[in-house]
């Protein structure tokens, strides 16, 4: 993050070969940090030749809020509220990722019902994320109607989440060894209803854009990422799959219920903005299939691990009616007791909507992580941005930014 520098010298410093040439006709444009198409706060220093982008230097850190430092102070259940605020357009997926890592560190096996509940919410989060990111691409290149269709369906998913846990936006739904509340019949009914009605909207959305001349012209062949570059630059998620990398953590290293469920990994080979859009559209259909299968096969039984493991809070009935329940409750909520972690370090990743979202945790015996590192997909994808935009026009900046789905809160943490 620059303070008081205009940017020219930074551009020159970043690319010595370009800096020595006396190219007076090139001019520098500050794109952001406040710009409608950046959606949040990120800044690009663009070096322009007329309307053509010669070079771009991302300048990030405007939203840096020390999430990893906070992770060294808050315990495993408290930190889930912070993960909500990383990729805030799919907070449920972050919650699942965080507790997936925590449970790997603690060596906890969650109950079958919890596995399915988490799978359902992670896939709903993927749909809501893809709706927003594709909707925003549409919005930025001028397809406003598409954005409204997408946002209406996001609202339906918000409703489901509200019925599920009381919060619409920052859910903090998962807990170590379980979830906040079990799924009620009402939630299941709402999800079934969504599964029934959503394909029609998806058809409408595809009809709106897939053959839309303006949209296709604005996105096809723009921001091409080859397969080799995608791997070398460590892209994951829809961005990598649109370039032909068949990497999907759900298949490569199955977690939750993905090994039991039937779904396809959606890929394309072109690697341009249009391919990324198509991959996201196709993934929403696959996610919907996953949600449907998981809801119909939802196992019965408890959603939290048993009281004897001293990990999840016991139910109120157990607390009031048995001495073991009372003791377990007190031991968990007292700040100097909590649960113990092994002195180990783990890296665990899930396939978040945006790509591989991993957490690296170091345990030192206490209930607080010694180090809580996050591998944010936005951070890695934004580093690719200058490579994608070179040679394109200024108006393509918004198309490429939108198709990478850069969320500044996750980018800067």
């Amino acid at each position, binding site marked *: 993050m620059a303070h008081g520098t205009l940017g020219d010298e930074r551009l020159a410093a*970043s690319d010595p070969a370009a800096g020595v040439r006396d190219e007076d006709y090139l001019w520098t444009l500050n794109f952001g940090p406040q710009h409608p198409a950046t959606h949040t706060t990120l800044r690009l220093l663009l070096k322009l030749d007329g309307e053509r982008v010669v070079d771009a230097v991302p300048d990030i850190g405007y939203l840096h809020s020390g999430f*990893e430092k906070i992770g060294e102070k808050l315990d495993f259940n408290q930190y889930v509220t912070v993960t909500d605020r990383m990729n805030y357009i799919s907070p449920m997926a972050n919650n699942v990722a965080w507790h997936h890592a925590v449970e790997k560190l603690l060596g906890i096996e969650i109950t079958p019902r919890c596995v399915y509940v988490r799978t359902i919410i992670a896939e709903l989060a993927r749909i809501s994320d893809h709706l927003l990111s594709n909707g925003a691409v549409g919005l930025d290149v001028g397809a406003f109607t598409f954005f409204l269709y997408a946002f209406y369906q996001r609202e339906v998913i918000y409703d489901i989440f509200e019925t599920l846990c009381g919060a619409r936006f920052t859910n903090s739904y998962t807990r170590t060894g379980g979830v906040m509340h079990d799924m009620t019949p009402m939630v299941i009914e709402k999800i079934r209803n969504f599964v029934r009605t959503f394909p029609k909207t998806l058809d409408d959305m595809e009809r709106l854009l897939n053959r839309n001349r303006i949209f296709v012209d604005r996105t096809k062949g723009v921001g091409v990422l080859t397969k080799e570059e995608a791997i070398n*630059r460590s892209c994951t998620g829809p961005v990598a799959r649109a370039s032909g990398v068949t990497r999907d953590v759900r298949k490569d290293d199955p977690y939750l219920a993905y090994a039991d469920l039937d779904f396809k990994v959606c890929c394309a080979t072109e690697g341009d903005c249009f391919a990324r859009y198509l991959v996201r559209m196709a993934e929403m259909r696959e996610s919907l299939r996953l949600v449907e299968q998981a809801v119909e096969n939802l196992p019965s039984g408890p959603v939290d691990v048993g009281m004897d493991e001293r990990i999840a809070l016991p139910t109120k009935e157990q607390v009031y009616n048995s001495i073991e329940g009372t003791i377990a409750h007190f031991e968990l909520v007292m700040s100097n007791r909590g649960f113990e972690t092994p002195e180990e370090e783990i890296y665990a990743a899930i396939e978040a909507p945006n790509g*591989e979202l991993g957490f690296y945790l170091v345990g030192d015996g206490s209930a607080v992580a010694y*180090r809580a590192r996050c591998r944010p997909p936005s951070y890695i994808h934004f580093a690719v941005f200058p490579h994608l935009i070179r040679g394109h026009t200024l108006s393509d900046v918004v198309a490429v930014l939108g198709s990478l789905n850069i969320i500044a809160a996750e980018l800067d943490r």
Partner: protein
Amino acid sequence: MSGTNLVDQLKAKFPDQVTGADLEAIDPWIAVRPEGLVDVCRFLKEDDQLRFDMLSCITCVDYFEPDEKKAAKVPWDPHLEVVYHLWSVPNKVSLVLKVMLPRWKDDTEGELPEVPSVAGVWRTADWHEREVYDLSGVRFTGHPDHKRILCPEDWVGHPLRKDYELPLEYHGIRGR
């Protein structure tokens, strides 16, 4: 390929560079000397069998002197660990590489320890290394664009060091 085989293969190829390994841990890891890091990484990436072509993450952990209450339980001496998480897309396996460093170069406080940059092996390492330098204070020699990334350029200190203290004020903004 099992972990033991891989460690033996690395030890045969780079006899002086592999300093340790823990294959019993939840995520097994191999430690290498900073001097040999780039060669080992290039070998891991380009070998026909191994093909660790994706670098998932670079992290630095600051193992600091523990406070008195924990001192009896904590087994480490103060040091830094730079941790590399690799993934092989064709083989679908992961690998953890570690580099152990002193907290300060030559034990002079303020002098950052040095590791060679692997940005020439995996392009993605560029921003990861900048972040590690910015937040944890490790200098990456040979890095193409070595400067802070998340904190402002004139920020003092490296926030993820365990002995870091927030500055009293920054450009007129109260820190603590």
